[in-house]
């Protein structure tokens, strides 16, 4: 694999993470991180949607009329999301039920449109596919980290299994979205203290 592709693939995971650096997809990362299992399936679904949408838009990129490009992108993204939802309903019904509305809300996830606008419109299909997959993965990683702490502290469980003793009183504040934002802030803090060049002067 050449250097360029490697960078495309690895950059979104840490150095250019869509949530902590680009600050995209904050809204859904607050909503679906109450439980770890849901966060994992959500992460996987977003990886598939970002990857395939970027690929398709990149294939169409030279033919899309500039004035309606957002609408065309939206059609592609919405189609992918509905396909993922339908496939989950057919093959993984239990998980689809658990995620309920959030699968449909991937359409509104800023990362998908953000990456299409910023990358897929100006790059070849293969790099675009990788960029989409990698950004989905970067998003998923943060989702899983936040969900880990929220489920652990908010319910005392991980993947539904009790890990903290019964005597632990679940912290209901952690279940609520504001606490997810604070956790997210902590992750951004940690990342910026490791990666000094992100700090504003």
């Amino acid at each position: 694999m050449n250097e360029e592709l490697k960078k495309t693939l690895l950059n979104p995971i840490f150095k250019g993470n869509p949530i902590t650096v680009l600050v995209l997809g904050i809204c859904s990362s607050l909503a679906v991180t109450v439980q770890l299992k849901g966060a994992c399936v959500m992460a996987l679904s977003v990886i598939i949607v970002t990857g395939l949408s970027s690929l398709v838009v990149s294939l169409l990129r030279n033919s899309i009329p500039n004035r309606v490009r957002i609408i065309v992108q939206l059609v592609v993204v919405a189609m992918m999301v509905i396909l993922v939802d339908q496939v989950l309903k057919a093959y993984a019904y239990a998980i689809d039920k658990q995620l309920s509305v959030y699968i449909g809300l991937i359409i509104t996830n800023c990362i998908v449109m953000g990456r299409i606008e910023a990358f897929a419109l100006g790059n070849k299909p293969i790099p675009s596919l990788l960029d989409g997959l990698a950004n989905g993965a970067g998003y998923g990683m943060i989702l899983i980290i936040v969900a880990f702490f929220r489920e652990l502290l908010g319910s005392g469980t991980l993947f539904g299994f009790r890990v903290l003793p019964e005597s632990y009183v679940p912290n209901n504040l952690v279940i609520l979205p504001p606490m997810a934002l604070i956790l997210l802030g902590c992750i951004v803090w940690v990342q910026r203290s490791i990666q000094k060049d992100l700090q504003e002067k």
Partner: protein
Amino acid sequence: MNTNSNVYTVIYTTIIVVVAAAILAIAAMALKPMQNANIKAETISQMLTAAGFSSKEDLAKLGNDQILAMYSQNVKTAFLIDKEGNQIGELKTEVNDIELQDNLKQENKNIAAGDPKLPVYVFEKDGAEINVIPVYGAGLWGPIWGYIAFNADCSQIVGAYFDHESETPGLGAKIKDEPWFREQFKGERVNFSKPDDSFDIVKGGAPKDDASAVDAITGATMTCNGLDAALDTWFKAYMPFLEKKANYKQEG
């Protein structure tokens, strides 16, 4: 080619939309049978859980076929009743041809209109009958529904299972996710003397001496209110049937 001309834009968007619609239509049609089978198995596993044959977790590990077989083996009869509680139709229970009355949304409208066809699923467990009925109503964000299992003379609830479409995870969704919530329904009774308010879900804890009330879930007031209303509405619709069962057993 000028990709910014009006003609090109109109033709391009039309083609994109038609292609996307075609792909989605094909996918929906191809996946529909599997989705319907999943929904049917899910509905049946909710009934089996309410009736106490298995737990939802164990049923989730079984394939759809096994769940249908389990239903067919344990169900004694299934029928439809009208608003007076008279039997007006049978539902098939053979394993290859299981009929369910699972369009609860429509029945909910029919109850309001006064012309429902309500299903009763009669299971046999350890020689005793268990009558399972559905309930349906509005939660905070979307529909909520469930199955309530009664003992042979419908005097006591022996189990319940609830589900929802889009309640808040960790709050309203607990009607499904928290086993303690549905466990409380065991041993409760429908209050026949108050047909309009025959069951209560009480915030802050149900009084111990009230046999027709259970505790609400903290942080899920709207969902619990919705479920309370759903139980009241459906129990009222089923009340002639439930009372008939109770009287018949007493006289007999």
